[in-house]
């Protein structure tokens, strides 16, 4: 446990020393919020009596889970490995779960900080309606969703040979998930075949769950969404462990 916590603290300090990487976590979601919020924010939402912004905020919160996973965690892990530090850890008693868990803890902190920032800005700019129950339920959904998506990020890091390749791979996963999951615009404006594809993307169900519980529906109502996320979590974790590499291939 001491190893894991020390490692997490060490990773986090190194991460924060490289200020640029905070962009995807702290700036990008706010830019999205301000742009789309400004255009559509006060228009009526999908659910009777709500505004667009009310559905957009929880969706952005889960988007930050995705961006932290495929950008921050993946690229960090690749950079880490290619620098040779994992090779150094390998000849110490450090286990692979220590490394994965310490990066995951860092990811969780970033996701929560990002969500707090989104909620605060939305409150200040649009006087967003929020309830303690909604916030709490959203947090539960987000933390659960992190398992599979972080696993995805770590799995991708095992496939990327360099930080450059990692960003490329991150884009390939990020943008389709962003547009096909209903975060940027509602799914019903898409052609039918794209709506069918969207049903096969875990992100879509993650967004639906987040929006639903944020609006006060019970956590118990989302059987399909929970099942998809649970399956994705198992798959993500398995791939993360399986594709983990201590050393660069060259």
């Amino acid at each position, binding site marked *: 446990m001491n190893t894991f916590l020390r*490692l997490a603290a060490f990773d986090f300090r190194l991460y924060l020393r490289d200020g640029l990487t905070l962009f995807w976590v702290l700036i990008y979601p706010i830019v999205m919020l301000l742009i789309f919020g400004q255009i559509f924010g006060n228009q009526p939402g999908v659910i009777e009596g709500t505004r667009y912004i009310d559905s957009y905020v929880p969706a952005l919160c889960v988007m930050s889970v995705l961006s932290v996973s495929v950008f921050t965690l993946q690229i960090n892990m690749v950079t880490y490995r290619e*620098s040779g530090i994992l090779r150094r850890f390998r000849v110490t008693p450090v286990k692979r779960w220590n490394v994965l868990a310490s990066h995951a803890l860092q990811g969780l902190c970033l996701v929560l900080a990002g969500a707090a920032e989104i909620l605060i800005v939305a409150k200040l700019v649009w006087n967003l309606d929020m309830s303690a129950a909604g916030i709490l339920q959203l947090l539960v959904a987000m933390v659960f969703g992190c398992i599979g998506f972080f696993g995805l990020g770590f799995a991708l890091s095992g496939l990327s040979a360099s930080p450059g390749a990692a960003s490329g791979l991150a884009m390939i996963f990020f943008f389709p998930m962003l547009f096909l999951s209903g975060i940027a615009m509602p799914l019903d404006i898409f052609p039918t075949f794209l709506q069918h594809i969207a049903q096969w993307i875990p992100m879509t169900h993650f967004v639906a769950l987040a929006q639903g519980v944020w609006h006060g529906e019970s956590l118990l109502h989302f059987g399909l969404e929970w099942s998809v996320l649970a399956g994705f979590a198992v798959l993500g974790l398995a791939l993360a462990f399986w594709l983990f590499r201590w050393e660069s291939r060259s």
Partner: protein
Amino acid sequence: MEANTLTNAISLSQVRKRYGAVDAVREMTFDVRRGEIFGIVGPNGAGKTTTIEMIEGLRTPDGGRIEVLGLDATRHREALKHRYGVLLQSTSIPGRAKVGELLRLFSSFYRRTADAGQLARSLHLEDKLQSSYKSLSGGWKQRVSLALALINDPEIVFLDEPSMGLDPNARNEMWEMILRMRGEGRTIVVTTHYMEEAQALCDRVAVIDKGALVALDTPRKLIARLGGARRIAFRNPGKVSRDRLSALPHVIQTEWGDEEIALHSDQLDLTLKYLFRMADAEDWIVSELRLGEATMNDVFSELTLQERRLAQ
């Protein structure tokens, strides 16, 4: 067997490792004694890294047996990691990390740790604890790596090219620190490209080529095997043919410089006799003559060349 584990820190017996169609390590058998500095030398791709990684438990041999501190290297890999320390080449530490952070981090990995403050003092790192790793010079970086290798007060220390890229001063300091580690009763396994390092530092040296052990002895005995003094150096007289010098009896190699020529001979007396005869006949003088001892460099090229010849 009992006595064996008391005197030997590491014991390899007929160890084999294949990668695809390539025999990376073939029938490797040797012991590393407790408390000695054991050198492993060999050309790139000779199997040094594979051998070390099998001893560290990172790779599993395809055959044979490796015991480290009396335990099977693969089966007891995790327990053994607490008992050895490793110095890898300096690129493996993130530049933005501070020295003090690294020491605290690595000491959290182990059940048993050295006193970090005392360790930092003994390596003169106490003023560098707040410095980032990348701001340090090569010699200081190696000191940090050494501190990390010693943080668990290990019984065995593996050093991978410890003086690679160091200036002569830093290299001498590194050698002193390694000798001090032996004085503390640790067993040290060092891989190196520098034969000078193997000669100055190691109690015994294993020469590895093409995955096989080709020689194992003290540097002195390895050198003696080649027949003592055998390098003949003299001032380049300026009007002498390289081909004719190379053709002198028993010359096996020539070094050619504008200032100095050196002949390597496996029969010093005879080569000298014919050298003087040739100088006399061609009307020049052998001046500034120096006879050199053979070095580990000669041992190395001799042994690895021999292997090549046999292989052909």
